[in-house]
């Protein structure tokens, strides 16, 4: 009896200590973003790339959480939500830093990215934000068109692999655009950043449809932005942050 209790508690604690990030399903059908992003591209992007980031992040987190060469503080860090871990990259033990930054970053970035997209509008110009987010865009950039110009230019001109982001500071509600390389995102450099919009400009994000023509991908990206969702990120997250 005693032996089975001990055995059971070992199993339970093992199961509890297994970190298992889930690959979230797309919030729409694989073909929902046609013709801007094809079903084939979305299947690859989600089922292969995002899955790989998920799997590799789990491997790294579990290895870190059970690594007997690390102190307890470092092992406990591995059990925090991945979004929180990534705001403390310097605290991650060196041997796990690169893999968590790349794969954890990839997991988080894609999780967010796919939710920011929706069925395309017929033209880019008819797809625009409204409400407090539009006010904030006009306040920070002068106009929506000017914001679009800056964001587009950054996306087209990014060298190599990376992302371009629109993000805000929860207190000031000032909006910023900047690019990051590989799977970095703005929260890695400032935990108080609230990401509102991102565009993946890794070649895998557009190559099956647009080949080398990244500018065409970026031009069409404006048709698939889920502005109501992005607006809700702005109003909800900035309200939540100011409550803290």
């Amino acid at each position, binding site marked *: 009896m005693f032996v089975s209790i001990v055995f059971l508690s070992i199993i339970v604690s093992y199961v509890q200590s297994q970190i298992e990030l889930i690959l979230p399903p797309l919030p729409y059908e694989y073909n929902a973003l046609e013709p801007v992003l094809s079903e084939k591209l979305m299947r690859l992007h989600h089922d292969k790339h995002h899955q*790989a980031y998920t799997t590799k992040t789990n491997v790294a987190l579990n290895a870190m959480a059970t690594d007997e060469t690390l102190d307890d503080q470092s092992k406990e860090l591995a059990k925090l939500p991945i979004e929180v871990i990534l705001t403390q990259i310097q605290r991650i033990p060196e041997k796990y830093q*690169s893999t968590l930054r790349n794969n954890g970053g990839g997991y988080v970035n894609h999780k967010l990215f796919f939710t920011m997209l929706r069925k395309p509008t017929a033209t880019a110009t008819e797809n625009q934000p409204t409400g407090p987010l539009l006010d904030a865009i006009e306040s920070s950039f002068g106009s929506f068109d000017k914001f679009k110009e800056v964001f587009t230019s950054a996306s087209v001109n990014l060298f*190599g*692999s990376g992302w371009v982001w629109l993000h805000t500071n929860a207190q000031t509600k000032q909006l910023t655009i900047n690019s990051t*390389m590989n799977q970095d995102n703005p929260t890695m450099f400032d935990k108080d950043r609230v990401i509102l919009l991102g565009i993946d400009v890794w070649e*895998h994000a557009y*190559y*099956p449809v647009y*080949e080398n023509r990244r500018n065409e991908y970026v031009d069409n990206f404006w048709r698939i932005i889920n502005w109501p969702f992005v607006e809700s990120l702005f109003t909800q997250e900035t309200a939540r942050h100011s409550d803290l």
Partner: protein
Amino acid sequence: MQSIIKLAPRTLVSVLSRCSKHTLPDLPYDYNALEPVISGDIMKLHHQKHHAAYVNNLNVAEEKYNEAKAHNDLTTMIHLQPAIRFNGGGHLNHSIFWQVLSPKEGGNQPTGALAEQIKKDFGSFDKMLSQLSNASVGVQGSGWGWLGFNRQEQRLQIATCANQDPLQATTGLSPIFGIDVWEHAYYLQYKNVRADYVKAIFEIANWKKADELLQKAKQ
């Protein structure tokens, strides 16, 4: 007379720029010659679009750079350096890449001086392949995997470079064999499975050319 003298430097600069424009080198084989390892579609896009864009953008950046230099505009010169590094590196890297690939041959292994040097510096050809493969597959984002020659230490080394950073300018190593691991180099065929592409590319490695590059580097 004075107006001619004032015009002269600008004209000279633009004439010089036109004379030294970079051009897209032809492939030493047909677009589909590297099948089935690299498809004709990929080779066409890779050469006619990607490499061509690096050449065109390099020429544009260099012309602007020369213009800025003629006006002692250091700010603009420095501002243009990333574009020259990126596009110039892209042109250099791809020019080497086309040369170190060749249509598939059976039992493709290095011979001569290269074979000896590999054995000396890695223990065996397979060990070198393993290290080069791991390094190339492990590149985060975009970049290149290289077998390079360290002239100071007279030995081969594996290295990786990010984006289009050229091997020699960045590390001092002389390029002997390289693998483009930007997604555009393999995506249409291998999708996200970079490891399969890296494994297959050794079937079309032009070890004769790599040997030539080594002999030159050793001089």
